[in-house]
């Protein structure tokens, strides 16, 4: 147990040590800190990714509180990649706007640590701690531009909403602990439902679901999302919209997989309603948006609705579709917000849709990244988004949720309109958009990598799909 314990937390140690070292570097070696800090951050995120990809600890660690199976390792790799990409996108962005201090990089690593903990938690305490670590770090990251009122306001809104979610979650976990008597997630949720514990179990689960609903912004709890995404610095928005949502959704997938059939029978109708609402409201509200970041925010809400739809099929083999789409979604949103980051001028964020008029000709590559990401978000071939949507809807229909799938398909058709509208603005020659200075070879490289991955996964998705279904099948046993 002790041996595997250390191996299990290797990525965690790497991120935490990186964060602490960055803080130390920022405080104690002021001269060369600005050169060393990004390198340190990059190295520790890369270390975390490599160690979770190639080192198999062969068993859960930390007294069984931390899962180390393929599922959590897969997500750990995704989070490391998201962190690396965010680091790359924010490198120039943060330096030009004067918030590239040690606190930004250090807290970014801590947020990544929180994500890995959330996705890998097999104990409520670890889940709670990871989620709070993630949220607390995100509050700081969103407020990173100290002198920007929008950034402050976004941080405040996310703080208030996040704390409410945390409160609900904590209370729900307390009730679940009371009813099942255990803090172990799979043992607790896997226990059968009796007449005695039904009320408590359902109360606890619904409180936990309210908390999770806030975090992944399902529709009745989504109101903070557009404001926060608009106000936060664009690379942070990329990080927030991908990392935190994917992490919490991974945890939700784990809960659903290990929940007992009787419990699941109560949860499924709830998820049905939430998924339908989220898809409809997200897509319809996005139609009216005139700011790119707000539009992407509503689009990301709708995307979560699609994933939730496939989550319903989790007991019928839909889990691999969910995991695949989460990976693809991370790429798409990272690319879209990353493109906003690299297309933004130094003085302000390029936010209004009109500012993008004709951008496709001024900056073909960077606008191309945005265009491909939008294409993929809309679910059009030959991008990864198409395959992802296909497997999602396939899983939902296979599991017998035809009506919900129809709602989803209609919502997706509506969504094509606003994605194509942005595309039209990008490639209409009529506009006057200022030329944005280059933002470094790294940012362009990351953008190209996302673009290539999206197209590659759209054309040859099967290796990743097979790998994911292997991972998921090992989890459910």
């Amino acid at each position, binding site marked *: 147990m002790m041996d595997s314990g250390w191996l299990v937390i290797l990525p965690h140690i790497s991120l935490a040590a990186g964060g602490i070292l960055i*803080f*130390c570097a*920022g*405080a*104690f070696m002021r001269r060369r800190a600005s050169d060393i800090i990004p390198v340190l951050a990059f190295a520790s995120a890369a270390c975390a990714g490599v160690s979770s990809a190639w080192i198999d600890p062969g068993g859960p660690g930390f007294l069984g509180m931390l899962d180390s199976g393929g599922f959590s390792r897969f997500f750990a790799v995704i989070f490391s990649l998201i962190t690396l990409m965010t680091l790359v996108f924010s490198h120039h962005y943060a330096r030009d706007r004067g918030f590239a201090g040690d606190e930004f990089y250090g807290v970014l690593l801590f947020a990544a640590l929180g994500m890995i903990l959330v996705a890998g938690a097999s104990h409520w305490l670890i889940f709670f701690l990871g989620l709070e670590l993630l949220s607390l770090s995100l509050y700081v990251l969103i407020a990173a531009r100290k002198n920007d009122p929008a950034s402050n306001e976004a941080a405040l809104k996310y703080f208030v909403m996040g704390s409410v979610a945390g409160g609900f979650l904590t209370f729900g976990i307390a009730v679940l602990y009371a009813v099942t008597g255990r803090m172990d997630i799979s043992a607790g949720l896997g226990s059968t439902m009796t007449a005695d514990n039904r009320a408590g179990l359902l109360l606890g689960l619904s409180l936990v679901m309210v908390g999770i609903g806030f975090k992944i912004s399902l529709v009745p709890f989504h109101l903070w999302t557009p404001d926060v995404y608009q106000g936060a610095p664009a690379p942070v928005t990329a990080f927030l919209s991908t990392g935190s949502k994917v992490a919490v959704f991974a945890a939700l997938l784990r809960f659903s997989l290990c929940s007992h059939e009787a419990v699941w029978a109560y949860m499924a109708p709830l998820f049905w309603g939430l998924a339908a609402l989220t898809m409809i409201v997200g897509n319809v509200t996005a139609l009216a948006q005139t700011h790119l970041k707000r539009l992407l925010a509503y689009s990301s809400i709708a995307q979560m609705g699609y994933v939730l739809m496939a989550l319903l099929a989790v007991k019928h083999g839909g889990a691999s579709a969910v995991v695949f789409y989460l990976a693809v979604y991370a790429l798409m949103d990272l690319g879209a917000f990353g493109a906003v980051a690299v297309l933004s001028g130094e003085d302000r964020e390029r936010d209004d849709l009109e500012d993008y008029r004709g951008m496709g000709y001024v900056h073909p590559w960077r606008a191309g990244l945005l265009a491909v990401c939008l294409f993929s978000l809309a679910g059009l071939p030959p991008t990864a988004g198409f395959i992802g949507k296909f497997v999602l809807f396939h899983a939902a229909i296979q599991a017998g949720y035809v009506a919900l799938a129809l709602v989803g398909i209609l919502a997706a058709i509506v969504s094509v309109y606003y994605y194509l509208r942005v595309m039209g603005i990008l490639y209409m020659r009529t506009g006057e958009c200022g030329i944005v200075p280059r933002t470094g070879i790294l940012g362009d490289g990351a953008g190209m990598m996302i673009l290539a991955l999206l197209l590659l996964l759209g054309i040859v998705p099967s290796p990743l799909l097979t790998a994911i279904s292997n991972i998921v099948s090992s989890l459910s046993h």
Partner: protein
Amino acid sequence: MDSIPQGAIQALSPWEPGIFGFVVYFILVTGLMAVILFLSGWLGVKKKNAEKTRPYESGILPTGSARLRYPVPFFLVATFFLIFDVEAAYIFSWAIAFKELGWAGWLQITFFIVVLAVSLFYVWFKGGLEWGSTTRRK
């Protein structure tokens, strides 16, 4: 003694930890307060003048608004206190299980304290503890 019912003795007995004594005390105190307030309001002479409406009668004359803004360092120090104070709870909980946790626990809490110390130095070097001037080193 026989004439008093058993239940009353139990309720009045000071040795039984119950809520009865507290209720009696509460009623007595509230009643006394009410009587004193009522009597002093009823019997007292009511004459209003400028002297009497002051916050501190015959005291120092107040100047300015009472709602003055505290300087920012107060908040900073309060925040730091909050953090470092609560961390003590973990050290206490280690201390009560000191023997059971052994050397492994000692090592872990040492690491914890070292990280805390590093963060204290971080705050110090970043200028968070500087009082007075709001210019901070970068």
